[in-house]
């Protein structure tokens, strides 16, 4: 092994990672990675799904221990054995899933994290410090609000505040924009810009190359656990980055407009006057009328938390229709069980694969079979035909260009691979109706294209698709019809050609509310 030398000193060099390697059973996640982070820079980390970005950052934050390699802070060798050590070295990380305690207020959550937390909580002092900082960086949150009442974007602000108040000088953000609405992304970037001006270093992981070009100073691309290269932003271009990530150029999907012969075919799915009552903090659906025809993609626009989850769940049968009827293939299915709905050809890609679709400790192979146990059971259920599962799933994977290990627990998959797992599972066996929520969350550019073309393929084969998304770009590109959800109601119905993102954006945020949407 080569001797690890401390990096050449440079006035603004902050952190250097040298020859970092990390293997998991069967996978080399990081392979001799070098990475330099300077003060006052936003450093973007790019790479395909499973490239090893999260792993590298978890090593820097002390969450995993590297098999080999060293980390230097200001030219001094630094030993990071735990997140505690990382925080002492003023390194902070926001994980993909937030770690706030919902039942606590913002101030309490932040106080819990402070290094100088005394035995007696001085909440007033914490409040004061929160207010000073949030004014400075335009990170407005109410310190007294309960975390459970905050939107995702606000929770993220709290996470960042938490790190700032504990004196972090390097912020690691793992896919912070994944769950944000477009306007929240802009706000986040302004905050990051302010932090950079104050000399903080920020490592930003994202799959959206336009975001990288917009806000970063330098960009490092990983592929298969190795560094492909680091480029300053002015020297980079989108196509160049894509080529570095995938070793090839990518061409976007061709979206053919489907011809729906309306009237000739009956709708696959028909919701008529559906109301729901949600438990807890969810949204109630109010008077939903919706049709999805064979060979049609119906886009559902809306800021998340306006009834998207409930819409998917009510179609599937996870929550009951309080009023109204649900028809599938012309038959009333209002009270059918989920199993019956799935057997008749419904697929569901919910918004959060880990909590809503997967059993985290079961292997990928087992997770692939759980929606179709009746199909793979042999001898009346005494045996499962795993070979058949593999054959079926491999077919879909080949079609989409994905590959996944069979025998690892779902929990250990990278964020994007987990999403791929659910997509592959739900698109196998030619579903007749696909409910896809935030289909491309966490997917890299190539997988996004693959997922989109798989949807279009399914539509061409006569399936109906309900595509729930926050990305207007995606909705305009793929949908044959668009509806807008706001506060549990459908507040607009369009064909993509008849409208623009400006009008939809207003409907989504409720700023141009029509008379019938006031509750």
């Amino acid at each position: 092994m080569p001797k690890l030398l401390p990096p050449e000193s440079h006035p603004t060099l902050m952190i250097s990672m040298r020859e970092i390697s990390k293997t998991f059973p069967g996978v080399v996640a990081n392979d001799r990675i070098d990475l330099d982070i300077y003060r006052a820079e936003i450093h973007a980390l790019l790479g395909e799904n499973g490239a090893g970005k999260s792993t590298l950052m978890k090593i820097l934050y002390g969450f995993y221990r590297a098999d080999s390699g060293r980390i230097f802070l200001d030219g001094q060798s630094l030993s990071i054995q735990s997140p505690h050590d990382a925080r002492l070295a003023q390194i902070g990380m926001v994980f993909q899933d937030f770690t706030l305690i919902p039942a606590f207020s913002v101030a309490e959550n932040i106080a819990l994290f402070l290094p100088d937390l005394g035995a007696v909580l001085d909440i007033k002092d914490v409040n004061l410090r929160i207010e000073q900082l949030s004014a400075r960086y335009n990170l407005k949150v109410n310190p007294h609000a309960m975390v459970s009442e905050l939107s995702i974007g606000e929770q993220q602000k709290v996470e960042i505040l938490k790190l700032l108040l504990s004196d972090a000088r390097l912020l690691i953000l793992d896919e912070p924009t994944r769950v944000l609405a477009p306007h929240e992304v802009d706000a986040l970037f302004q905050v990051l810009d302010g932090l950079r001006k104050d000399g903080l270093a920020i490592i930003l992981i994202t799959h959206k190359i336009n975001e990288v070009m917009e806000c970063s100073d330098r960009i490092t691309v990983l592929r298969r656990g190795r560094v492909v290269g680091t480029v300053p932003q002015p020297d980079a271009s989108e196509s160049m980055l894509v080529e570095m990530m995938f070793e090839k150029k990518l061409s976007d999907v061709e979206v053919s407009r489907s011809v729906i012969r309306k009237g000739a075919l009956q709708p696959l799915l028909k919701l008529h006057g559906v109301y729901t009552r949600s438990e807890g903090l969810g949204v109630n659906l109010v008077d939903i009328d919706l049709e999805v025809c064979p060979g049609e993609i119906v886009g559902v626009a809306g800021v998340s938390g306006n009834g998207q989850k409930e819409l998917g769940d009510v179609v599937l049968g996870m929550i009951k229709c309080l009023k109204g009827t649900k028809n599938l293939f012309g038959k009333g299915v209002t009270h059918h069980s989920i199993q019956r709905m799935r057997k008749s050809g419904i697929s569901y890609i919910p918004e959060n694969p880990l909590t809503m679709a997967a059993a985290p400790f079961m292997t990928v192979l087992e997770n692939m079979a759980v929606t179709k146990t009746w199909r793979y059971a042999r001898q009346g259920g005494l045996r499962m035909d795993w070979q058949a599962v593999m054959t079926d799933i491999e077919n879909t994977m080949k079609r989409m260009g994905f590959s996944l290990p069979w025998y690892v627990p779902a929990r250990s998959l990278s964020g994007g691979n987990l999403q791929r797992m659910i997509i592959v599972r739900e698109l196998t066996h030619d579903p007749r109706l696909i409910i896809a929520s935030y289909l491309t969350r966490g997917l890299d550019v190539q997988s996004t294209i693959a997922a989109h073309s798989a949807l279009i393929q399914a539509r061409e084969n006569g399936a109906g698709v309900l595509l729930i998304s926050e990305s207007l770009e995606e909705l305009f590109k793929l949908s044959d019809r668009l509806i807008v959800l706001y506060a549990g109601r459908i507040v607009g119905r369009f064909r993509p050609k008849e409208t623009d993102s400006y009008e939809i954006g207003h409907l989504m945020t409720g700023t141009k509310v029509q008379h019938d949407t006031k509750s």
Partner: protein
Amino acid sequence: MTQSPDARNRSSFIAEKLMHFLVRYGLMIVIAFLFFGLILLISGEDPIQSYRDIFTSTLGSSYGFSEVVVAMSPMLLTALAVALPSRLGLINVGVEGQLYMGACFSTWGALAFSNSPSWILLPLMIVLGMIGGALWAFIPGYLRALGLVNETITTLLLNSVAPMIVSFFVFGFWHSPMDTNKTPNFSPSARLPKFFDTRIDLSLVIGLALLVLFWFLMRYTRWGLEMRAIGGNPLAARRNGIPVKTYLIAVMCIGGAIAGLAGMTQVSGYYGVLLVNFSRGIGYMGFLISWLAGGSPLGILLTSFVISIIFSGGNLLQLTRDLPYAVINVLLAFTLFVVLARPSFLINRKEA
């Protein structure tokens, strides 16, 4: 980035896990015995001599060994009655009550059809026992599936009711002319067959067979897969089309049926008569064993064996060393404490 580990990799992984398991439990037992040795020292006994006594009286003679096995047999069943529902995330603290109901139902069979030959009577009693336990578990299971009450509370509450029902029948209707607190002795045709001139009876075979069945069920079958999916993430399992409510009720009832079977084997095999308050907490012991063993079939077998040694040995210590019986509970508590505390040096910390 994503190659599946090959089959050899997998089997070595399983071997490693098994070693890890054995080392961990072995060490824990050693630690518990060290602690207990201290207690013995303090109370003025020679720990080494005491342990030698325990050893010779349990594993050292065929009679001693058979008594250990006799103590172990019902625990296999009661532990299984906890372990099976635990795979769905259900916490069945009600084995004690289900056991009493099983004993009660099968006793009715034994008394009412005492003249039938045993090839009719025993299966009948087994079925009755299982029905009794299942009925007692159905109530909590159903309430839980409706989302009304947590099963932990209901099963626990029902535990104090079941012995009263038994007492009601025994005192009121079934008691023998001589004693008010027990039934007349069962007719020979209502007794489980015994092996090798010892008190070991058919319940051992039943227990072992059910453990193997449990392992097979979880490992290979469709239902095992679905149950693990529910245990792993109940909401996802529902969205994936698994009938979670049906499973909750059915599995709770099966757990209860196994507990009822344990009750049946106690009255039909061990005692040959229904005593009020006969159980001495075997139901609770099953809960303990299942959790110590992490719900694994092999773990249940090993743990119940060790606990039976402690019990049998404890009886002996009480007789020969004049130690109070409570000392055994101290040893059990130590074992529990060590296992639950999971000393960090025993756990492989690769993940951290």
